[in-house]
């Protein structure tokens, strides 16, 4: 228990250890972790969302969209990082590439399933009202698909935050994972403090994304409106 108390003190001291030279502050490392993860998620969304949404809109490529997701689940993040290090060396480039490799598939799969699954009667009605293909996508399919699309982004985000910290094991420094990988300098309380912070960070990211998802979901889709932590936190992994 004493270690946990010391860990909280370590967080309170912003990651400094008394009597030792200054270390990177926890605020800095947390922001850096968010930056690395944010770039990864941002690029992954930019790549994957248009592909998934478009494939869903034209109802094609289900085999690719769904199997990409199946193979993704089998990719161990440390292995992806390690193989990347062999080709690209240690550095931000490799980390971001690994993050994108891990984050793109669930976003594609979920976006595809979400848009593809919009009821055909609704799309037909929209077409009958004279909407063009683009308008149908923007005004009908996307709003209805948002919950599932966002579930994919959240699943990916969870993976990305987790992998960002694991990247420290492959020699890339800059994230909160550094502290865990450097027990000799930080000792057990420091490592524990970083672990607590990483856990809280991941939970915070999940809750923020859940709130964004809720804000973006059209009012008509919020059935009953009663959501609790269970439905808010549990990421939906689309099954195929």
């Amino acid at each position, binding site marked *: 228990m004493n270690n*946990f108390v010391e860990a909280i003190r370590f967080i309170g001291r912003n990651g400094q250890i008394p009597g030792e030279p200054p270390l990177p502050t926890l605020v800095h490392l947390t922001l850096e972790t968010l930056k690395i993860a944010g770039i990864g998620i941002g690029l992954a969304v930019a790549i994957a969302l248009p592909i998934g949404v478009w494939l869903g809109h034209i109802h094609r490529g289900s085999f690719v969209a769904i199997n990409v997701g199946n193979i993704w689940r089998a990719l161990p993040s440390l292995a992806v990082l*390690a193989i990347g290090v062999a080709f690209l060396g240690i550095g931000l480039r490799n980390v971001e590439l690994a993050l994108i490799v891990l984050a793109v598939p669930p976003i594609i799969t979920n976006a595809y399933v979400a848009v593809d699954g919009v009821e055909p009667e609704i799309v037909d009605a929209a077409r009958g009202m004279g909407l063009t293909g683009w308008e149908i996508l923007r005004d009908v399919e996307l709003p209805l698909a948002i919950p599932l699309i966002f579930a994919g982004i959240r699943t990916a985000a969870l993976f990305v935050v987790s992998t960002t910290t694991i990247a420290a094991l492959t020699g890339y420094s800059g994230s909160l994972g550094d502290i*865990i990988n450097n027990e000799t300098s930080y000792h057990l309380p420091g490592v524990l403090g970083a672990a607590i912070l990483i*856990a809280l960070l991941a939970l915070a990211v999940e809750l923020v994304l859940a709130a964004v998802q809720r804000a973006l979901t059209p009012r008509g889709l919020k059935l009953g409106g009663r959501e609790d932590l269970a439905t808010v936190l549990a990421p939906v992994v689309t099954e195929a």
Partner: protein
Amino acid sequence: MIVAAAGGPVIPTFGSGSGSFACERANRLFCPGWVSRNWSSVLWPALVQHIVLTLIAVSIGFVLSMALALVAYRRRWLERPVLIVTSILYTIPSLALFELLEPIPGFGLSRTTAEVALVSYTLLILFRNTLTGLREVPAEVRDAAAGMGMGPTQSLLRVEIPLALPAIIAGLRIATVTVISLATVASLIDNEGLGVPILTAISNEVFKTELIVAGGMAVLLALAADALLVLAQRALTPWTRVKAA
């Protein structure tokens, strides 16, 4: 252990003088010679450890989640608290969870710590899939079972669980590949499994061959396990294929 630590140079042994280690010394992308020399001493044992770690975690996770799901199936109020706790466990990044468990008395740097963390990642997926599978059994089917004179237990064992099998196995697939993935990180705590050669290769000034082979083995193991479970599902639920025909 002390003898082993004192003896021998740190791997990879590049050797001295002989030209046969040229590939290793140049640290080329892939040295087949290194793989064959280290297969039986490094790679194969790591693979076996990885499989054992995974099997233990998935089995324990499966038993726990099945029990929880079966109770929650009968007592609905249990569903929410179980989902909240397991979602929080699922959300905690693996690296953090391993470190959080380590200082707890009786855990430390051990297989127990690794397994407890790995099991905790399977619970959400297995629990949710099992419960969803059971809930989706049509009411008419349950009525028919009751009409044939089956009691609740018999109906559960002979009708409801078999019909929920596709969902249960889908959960097992996700849980298994998740555990295989996280077990590489567990090497940090446990010093076994395919994470060990990966971390060794990094500390040896990025020895590429070992990174590619160990990383590739982890990926292939996950793909193979996933494929095996798909086959198991086909064998166990022959009726699901009738629709496709």
